[in-house]
């Protein structure tokens, strides 16, 4: 038997639904079966991480122990002291395993990533969130089993959505009423069906049927035209964008759906992103839990510090500096290749341009028309800018040029 990637095969869904059944019956009768929940988590994690090659699973165990140690040492430290540098040190220590995993491919013949397993990014986001909120005093107490339950919540373990500890606790500590649970089941079934259509029909059509053919066609222009640019490349851009959305949105719908069955309202990750009227709007609709994580734990904190200490006077410069930092970090997080970093820079400049346009619009509000045609144009423009950025992200240019 091999490790099964969550939500990737019919097997996974069958195991999952069988395991969920007692949880659902329990919730139906107003009970949370905490011991059974733990058992189900162990089984699912076993299928996911220990099915074939055990190294992922062993990494996961050591990773959890390591992060738990950090969080609880910091928690006991924070009860008495609050030094900025100690806090920074703990955040850095919490991120280090992820940094190693990301740097590993750059180093030839060296494996420095002790903790390589699927989903390490998402667990790290959760752990860092907890450390930051402990510092702010928003989390005053957390028990080891609560920490582990939050990090290992299996519906979202491999790729999010990234929930927040206090929000998650609110759901776990209460049992939904019969009416609320019926509503959650209803929403769960809808999302499951939508997810199946997104990932296994539309995503499959674009990603598995169309994309490989168009890639071959696109790469056939390599060296034939200036920079290998062709209509095939343009088609690739749109097909890849559709695949990326439907595949990931489909996966996210599964994660939210399964959470709902378990009485947990995991936040949604996508909100019709291709209807965005500008790039800022786009980031409020695309991979929402990630962009909000970056917004709350990097961008706003950075802005807050910079404004408070008056490092830079001009607020436009501060905001732009923030965008560059944020999107560069996001680029590096995706992976240490040139196209992810260019993707980050591209979005930073798109945000900066967008802000400049919004400022201009504010000053000339009376002379700039605003109607359904300008709205349609804005949506069209944003869609194309986004698809262009996904073409960079896809790495096709790397194959085409180098």
């Amino acid at each position, binding site marked *: 038997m091999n490790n099964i990637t969550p939500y990737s095969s019919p097997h996974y869904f069958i195991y999952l639904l069988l395991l969920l059944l007692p949880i659902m019956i329990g919730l139906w009768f107003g009970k949370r079966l905490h011991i059974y929940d733990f058992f189900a988590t162990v089984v699912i994690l076993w299928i996911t991480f220990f099915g074939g090659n055990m190294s992922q699973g062993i990494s996961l165990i050591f990773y959890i122990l390591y992060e738990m140690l950090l969080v609880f040492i910091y928690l006991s430290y924070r009860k008495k002291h609050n030094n900025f540098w100690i806090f920074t040190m703990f955040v850095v220590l919490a991120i280090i395993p992820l940094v190693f995993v990301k740097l590993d491919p750059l180093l030839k013949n060296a494996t420095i990533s002790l903790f390589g397993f699927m989903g390490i990014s998402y667990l790290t986001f959760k752990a860092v969130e907890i450390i*930051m*909120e402990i510092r*702010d*005093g*928003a989390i005053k107490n957390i028990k080891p089993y609560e920490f582990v339950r939050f990090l290992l919540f299996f519906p979202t373990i491999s790729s999010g959505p990234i929930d927040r500890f206090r929000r998650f606790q609110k759901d776990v500590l209460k049992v939904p009423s019969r009416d609320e649970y019926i509503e959650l089941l209803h929403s769960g079934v809808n999302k499951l069906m939508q997810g199946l259509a997104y990932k296994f029909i539309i995503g499959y059509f674009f990603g598995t049927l169309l994309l490989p053919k168009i890639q071959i066609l696109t790469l056939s222009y390599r060296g034939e035209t200036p920079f290998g640019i062709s209509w095939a490349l343009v088609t690739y851009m749109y097909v890849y964008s559709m695949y990326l959305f439907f595949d990931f949105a489909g996966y996210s719908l599964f994660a939210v759906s399964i959470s709902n069955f378990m009485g947990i309202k995991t936040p949604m990750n996508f909100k019709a992103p291709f209807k965005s009227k500008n790039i*800022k709007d786009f980031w409020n609709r695309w991979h929402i839990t990630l962009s909000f994580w970056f*917004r*709350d734990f990097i*961008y*706003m*904190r950075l*802005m*807050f510090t910079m*404004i*408070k200490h008056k490092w830079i006077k001009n*607020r436009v410069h*501060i*905001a732009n500096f*923030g965008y560059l930092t944020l999107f560069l970090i996001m680029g590096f997080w995706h992976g240490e290749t040139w196209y992810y970093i260019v993707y980050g820079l591209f979005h930073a400049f798109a945000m900066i341009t967008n802000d400049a346009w919004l400022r201009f619009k*504010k000053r000339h509000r009376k002379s700039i028309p605003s109607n359904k045609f300008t709205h349609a144009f804005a949506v069209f423009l944003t869609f194309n800018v986004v698809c262009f950025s996904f073409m960079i992200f896809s790495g096709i240019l790397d194959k085409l040029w180098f």
Partner: protein
Amino acid sequence: MDEIKNKIVDILKDVTGLDDAGSDADQDLFKDGVLDSMATVEVLVTLQDTFGIQVPVSEFDRSQWSTVNKIAQRVQELE
């Protein structure tokens, strides 16, 4: 309370540069795009300086700070 609200409206006008910012005390400032992340931080810092309160960023739950009325209530609690 009214004094707090007036001060908050002044801060909102100042930060956003909009004359009608906060004129409706129940308007959702985030949903209607009056405040973006940057403006939010500026409002937060100004609130801290004006009222001498401490608002850690992670205490800043958007749903609890979304209207002039809600901000005034939070400020009063923290003062």
